[in-house]
């Protein structure tokens, strides 16, 4: 029945768990943990390929450990001395967990509810089959050329296989509508992976409408997509990458909610709160949306009289916290039609704003966009008539577990309701344990990379149902660019190597040594002040060294 030439091992018997079995392989069939293997069973009379994931590997026969007694004498030398053959001596016992067979009607895995019999031959699962069944692509056969599908993101390939051998294309629609989390320690490749996804989403076959909230200026190189042939469509499409610098990031005062204002003002008294709420509501009922602090204070004085002590105290606080902050403006705001458009990726550069201002601008923008999406879906006039996807670097700042951010409420709303309105969020964070649990658990697709901190590992475990223990075990050992992809975009989690970017990566750490040396050389070239005083032509060099 089975051609034994591609057989890599033989089933020995059931394992500890109901879904586990044990098999044996010789050493030359080197199978790593995490590898996908397959065997055939008959399901209702039809032969089906069942997939299983290798979870453990142990040596059951090999050179005795006594041969390792002297570190300077190799075990193979001892073996040669004793005439023990060293080829093919090793025998491995591996444990595998059944994933299931690909049910073409359900387009996902179905459990055969029966372990393979002892003696069943096992093969390495073929590339194309895995490419079809691992991600949630809804294919109607179990072996499709997934590169021809629209709306898929080529994110990388299976880590256990050679580079680019078994490629993973994940469905963009899935992670863009049911939200995405990219979680890993600093330097593990979060921004890199996000950029890979942005590249994929901006290709002619997807033409996404993207927003990147970038507090560190890590996305400056995406612009190089423009002019690249790989991103150009036959109809003349080319992605447009817009940078929105901090000077253009404005919050129109009337767009703040009373809760935001309370948070901005430093600890107002109960009486102040009461006066401010009344006046704020009165202002919001007005026709005009372009009022400022002056108008607000005039309204308070109208209601409470112009010698009210609380109004006086409020005026002082409002002028200090809102009027003197350039972020707030009576009229100006960020025009939504400038920042969202199909085929456009807008990077909101927030690196010079303090964290508080970052949270406020984010809060207000998210609210406005959410309102527009709601209007669009409910057939009302809307400025945003297409789905949007917003990515957040430092996601824990905007949806903190501590609750201390004005943006938390709208983030919760969008992650729980956004899928109905075509508003997806991507949360990137190096501190998963500091992200609000509601927000994190609503992120349907997860890309987890190296994480060592046990609290953060627990946070992933608790919120990421789809990733099984065996996959999470891998997290501490991953190196930059290696990731576990799990959740809605996948039929089963997979360990991958994220592909290389087409655009250069802009978030590398600075070449510190190089910069020190350059700065030092620069210094050496400049004559010092005391030297210049010693020479006749001194007066001009003295000025130079000041800049």
């Amino acid at each position, binding site marked *: 029945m089975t051609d034994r030439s591609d057989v890599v091992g033989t089933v020995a018997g059931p394992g500890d768990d109901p879904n586990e079995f044990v098999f044996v392989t010789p050493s030359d069939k080197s199978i790593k943990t995490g590898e996908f293997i397959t065997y055939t069973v008959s399901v209702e009379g039809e032969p089906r390929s069942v997939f299983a994931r290798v979870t453990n590997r142990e040596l059951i026969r090999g050179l005795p450990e*006594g041969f390792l*007694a*002297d570190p*300077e*004498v190799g075990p193979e030398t*001892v073996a*040669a*001395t*004793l*005439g023990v053959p060293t080829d093919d001596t090793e025998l491995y016992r591996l444990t595998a967990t059944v994933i299931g067979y690909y049910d073409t009607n359900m387009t996902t895995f179905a459990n055969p509810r029966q372990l393979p019999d002892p003696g069943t031959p096992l093969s390495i699962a073929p590339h194309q089959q895995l490419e079809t069944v691992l991600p949630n692509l809804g294919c109607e056969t179990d072996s499709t050329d997934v590169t021809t599908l629209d709306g898929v993101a080529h994110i990388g390939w299976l880590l256990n296989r050679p580079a680019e051998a078994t490629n993973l294309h994940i469905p963009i629609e899935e992670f863009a509508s049911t939200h995405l989390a990219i979680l890993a320690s600093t330097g593990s490749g979060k921004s890199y992976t996000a950029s890979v996804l942005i590249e994929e989403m901006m290709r002619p076959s997807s033409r996404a409408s993207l927003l990147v909230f970038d507090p560190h200026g890590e996305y400056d190189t995406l612009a190089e997509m423009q002019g690249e042939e790989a991103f150009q469509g036959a109809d003349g499409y080319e992605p447009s990458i817009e940078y929105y610098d901090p000077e253009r990031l404005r919050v129109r005062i009337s767009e703040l909610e009373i809760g935001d204002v309370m948070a901005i003002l430093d600890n107002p008294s109960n009486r102040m709160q009461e006066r401010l709420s009344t006046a704020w509501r009165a202002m919001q009922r007005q026709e005009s949306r372009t009022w400022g602090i002056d108008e607000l204070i005039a309204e308070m004085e109208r209601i409470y009289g112009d010698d009210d002590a609380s109004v006086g105290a409020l005026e002082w606080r409002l002028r200090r916290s809102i009027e003197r902050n350039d972020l707030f403006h009576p009229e100006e705001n960020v025009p939504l039609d400038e920042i969202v458009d199909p085929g456009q990726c807008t990077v909101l550069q927030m690196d010079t704003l303090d964290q508080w201002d970052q949270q406020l601008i984010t809060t207000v923008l998210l609210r406005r966009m959410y309102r527009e999406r709601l209007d669009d879906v409910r057939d009302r006039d809307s400025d945003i008539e297409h789905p949007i996807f917003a990515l957040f670097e430092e996601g824990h700042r905007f949806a903190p577990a501590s609750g201390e951010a004005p943006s938390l409420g709208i983030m919760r709303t969008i992650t729980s309701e956004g899928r109905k309105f075509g508003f997806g969020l991507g949360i990137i964070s190096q501190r998963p344990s500091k992200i609000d649990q509601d927000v994190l658990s609503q992120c349907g697709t997860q890309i987890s990379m190296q994480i060592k901190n046990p609290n953060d590992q627990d946070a992933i475990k608790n919120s990421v149902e789809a990733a099984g223990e065996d996959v999470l075990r891998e997290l501490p050992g991953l190196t930059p660019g290696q990731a576990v992809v799990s959740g809605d975009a996948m039929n089963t989690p997979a360990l991958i190597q994220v592909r290389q970017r087409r655009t250069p990566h802009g978030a590398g750490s600075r070449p510190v040594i190089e910069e020190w040396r350059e700065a030092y050389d620069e210094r050496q070239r400049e004559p010092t002040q005391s030297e210049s005083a010693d020479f006749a032509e001194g007066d001009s060099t003295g000025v130079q060294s000041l800049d």
Partner: protein
Amino acid sequence: MHRSTTRRQYGDEAMTDTLADGDSPDLDSCVRIGSIVSSNSHLDYVAEVYKERDCDRPPELHEREFGQPVFIKKTVDGTEHAVMGVIYDTQLVDPDQGRTGPRLAQDDQAQFTPGYIEERTTLAGVALLGTAEIAEDGTIQEPTHQMPRWTLEVEDTVFHCPDQVTVSFHTVDDQIQLAYMDRLLDIAGDLGSEVIVALIDRLRGMLPEDDPNQRVLDVVEQNVQWQAREQRGMV
């Protein structure tokens, strides 16, 4: 009897102490230790040690001690070979005590089951280790630790193996070898680890002190000792 005449015939030849002789050992002039009297299996022989009246120069006690490498000459297909062996056990026989002649083995783990012996004598158990060709110049070549295919004969002479030959036999491609080890452990039974340790000790003494093979021998010895202790339930 027949056997003793044969012995005398060998005893007529001149004999040199090769150990004292130094450089190139002459396989023809090695000390004769004894002659084969029986076998327990294809690899397990019994030799009767020569006494004063069997030859001109019977082996001295230290020349036929436990762990002494030996060889037996065999001409196969016109080429002279040395069948290499080691003394892994000894036994004294006094026919007057047993009258009907002893069966030396005490149980069915038979090691010595020599035939009828008339006089007081010392028997040595010789386990075969491998073979080598004897070259024109008297040195050995092409040593192999594979199981020897040929059988020895009753009355074959067992020679004392000089150190240089022992080293040559244990050196394959500059690498020390004791590939017969598992077979020897099997034949030598309870004394298996001791005979191997004795062989290793000898080899260590024969190799230069800075020879990298010294450390390999250490590891092998450790392994054998450890296994023996494990088998005896010590650890």
